[in-house]
């Protein structure tokens, strides 16, 4: 009895469910297949027309722009998947299929060419694998243009700025006085050093955590030369932990020169500037330790700072030191403003450096930059006025003028 029922049982338990599962899988798979319109099997899409290849100007001869008229099937019936582009190099006859541009788009920029070689393009309309007959473009030879006239506005403005800087440097070199307004933070530097002298406690100078390739570090080192001069004159102890080897080298040289200038070269000691580590928070941990153990009367933070700014400034605040900071890092300025006694904000750091050094190059640069700022102020006032009037009156000439002002400060590469 059992023997008779075994095949039936097998069928019920294994075969039947298997068949059901296979049937369902087959049905689901069939649903996942894209629905192919009935007419697409035989529908060959209409080709494009007017395929034009143009050399992209003001480049290094590596780019060609390709335009074409959309296929009638694209514009009317929407029965186009895209346009298949093929590049033919004329000298070798090598054909490269580039990519399929989606329907509705009639532009392509081919920027992987070699200048001097001749190229042509073929375009086929594609619809569910069916392709139209190819339409060929003209033969094009990409060429090199030495000057990129698209950047003429950048050149003009940079020329005015650089010209001003060079003019004022030459002016300063002739010994003519260049007026720079007093920077309040600089008086604070002298006061802070005086306080350290009175208290007989050291000065801590932190030049930031960037290397000598950062202009903020350079400005910090220029200010160090001023601080070191007073330090050498009054025989105050200066402690300068650094996180970059090049900064250590430069700072040692700066302080040494200050001591030689003060006529006390023997008082100089290389240990005044110490390398700690390149690691940001390792450096911060060490500087914090130095602060609480040495208890400097004055802390200078002049250079490029990042997440360590508030940690340093808060520790300095906790030991009651006078703190003077200066950085051009916008994200760190709020912390220095909040925790320090005086902060040189952004360009004030560079201005202070120029003011103190009294060097023609630095003074001239600062004056030249002021010319740039003046141009910017005038441009903003005039630009905003024209744009507002154009919007309110609807005048086409004002709109054109406003457009020109916008283009003047837009970079098109």
């Amino acid at each position, binding site marked *: 009895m059992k023997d008779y029922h075994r095949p039936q049982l097998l069928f019920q338990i294994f075969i039947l469910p298997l068949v059901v599962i296979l049937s369902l899988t087959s049905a689901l798979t069939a649903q996942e297949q894209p629905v192919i319109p009935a007419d697409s099997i035989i529908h060959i899409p209409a080709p494009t027309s007017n395929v034009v290849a143009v050399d992209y100007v003001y480049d290094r001869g590596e780019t060609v722009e390709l335009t074409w008229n959309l296929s009638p099937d694209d514009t009317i019936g929407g029965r186009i998947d895209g346009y298949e582009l093929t590049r033919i190099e004329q000298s070798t006859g090598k054909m490269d299929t580039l990519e399929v541009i989606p329907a509705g788009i009639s532009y392509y920029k081919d920027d992987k060419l070699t200048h001097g070689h001749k190229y042509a393009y073929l375009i086929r309309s594609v619809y569910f694998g069916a392709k139209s007959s190819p339409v060929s473009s003209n033969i094009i030879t990409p060429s090199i243009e030495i000057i990129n006239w698209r950047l003429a506005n*950048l050149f003009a403005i*940079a020329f005015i*700025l650089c010209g001003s800087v060079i003019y004022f440097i030459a002016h300063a070199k002739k010994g003519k006085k260049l007026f*720079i*307004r*007093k*920077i309040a933070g600089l008086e604070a530097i002298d006061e802070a050093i005086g306080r350290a002298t009175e208290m007989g406690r050291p000065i801590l100078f932190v030049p930031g955590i960037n*290397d*000598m*390739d950062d*202009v903020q570090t350079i400005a910090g080192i220029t200010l160090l030369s001023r601080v070191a001069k007073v330090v050498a004159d009054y025989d105050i102890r200066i402690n300068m932990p650094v996180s970059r080897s*090049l900064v250590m*080298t*430069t700072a040692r040289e700066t302080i040494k020169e200050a001591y030689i200038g003060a006529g006390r070269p023997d008082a100089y000691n290389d240990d005044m500037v110490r390398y*700690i*580590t*390149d*690691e940001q*928070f*390792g450096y911060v*941990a*060490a500087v914090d*330790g130095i602060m*609480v*153990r040495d208890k400097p009367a004055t802390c200078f933070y002049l250079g490029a700072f990042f997440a360590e700014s*508030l940690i340093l400034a808060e520790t300095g605040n906790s030991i009651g030191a006078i703190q003077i900071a200066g950085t051009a890092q*916008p*994200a760190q*300025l*709020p*912390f220095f*403003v*909040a925790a320090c006694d005086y902060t040189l*904000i952004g*360009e*004030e750091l560079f*201005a202070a450096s120029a003011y103190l050094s009294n060097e023609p190059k630095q003074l001239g640069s*600062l*004056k030249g930059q*002021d010319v*740039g*700022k003046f141009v*910017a*102020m005038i*441009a*903003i*006032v005039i*630009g*905003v006025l024209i*744009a*507002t009037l*154009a*919007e*309110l009156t609807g005048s086409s000439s004002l709109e054109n003028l406003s457009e020109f*002002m*916008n283009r*003047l*400060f*837009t*970079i098109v590469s």
Partner: protein
Amino acid sequence: MSWEQTFGIWLAAAFTLGIVSFLYRDNIFYKVCEAIFVGSSAGYWFVTYFWDNLYRKFYLQAFDPVSPHIAPWVGFILGVLMLTRLFGAKIAWLSRWPLAFIIGATAGVYMMFYFVSNAMLQIGASIKPVFVGSFGDIVSNVLIAAGTFCGLVYFFFSKEHKGVFGGAARVGIWFLMVTFGASFGYTVMSRMSLMLGRLDFLFGDWLRLIS
């Protein structure tokens, strides 16, 4: 969890607590953590610089058996010049050359980049009609134009901040301070998230008090 992982977690927790103990006062635990952190990081960077620069960027390229490059030798020679200061004052001046090269090259490379991103595009973005759109748009546009203009006045160093010019500069510094305030609050919140991360580690990974 393997014993290595457990050891690592306990070590990280001990260092975290050691560094945080600085909030109370300077103490022996902080000093130990500080010394280990500074020493290990200095060693780590020495090894990193050695393999990244001397080995990969210099040795592998300069002594490439197929096509040896000449350019890495420029960097090598400049690097060697830095060491001349160790051999007396007579040749120590040579160490200024690599410094001059680094500073000059960086200034040249970044000049146009900064000029475009920090000056031209900022000016272009400020030039827009002010009395257009909703009340909020008008207020926003006026603030952008006035803030940028007054900020520039504040950073103009060729004229004393007196009279109308001084008034505009004062407005400029107010704009800066308001911006700093907003930035301060934003950054403090992001630092709080860092602290929460550490607390999560201490109470979750280490003490297993939270899941």
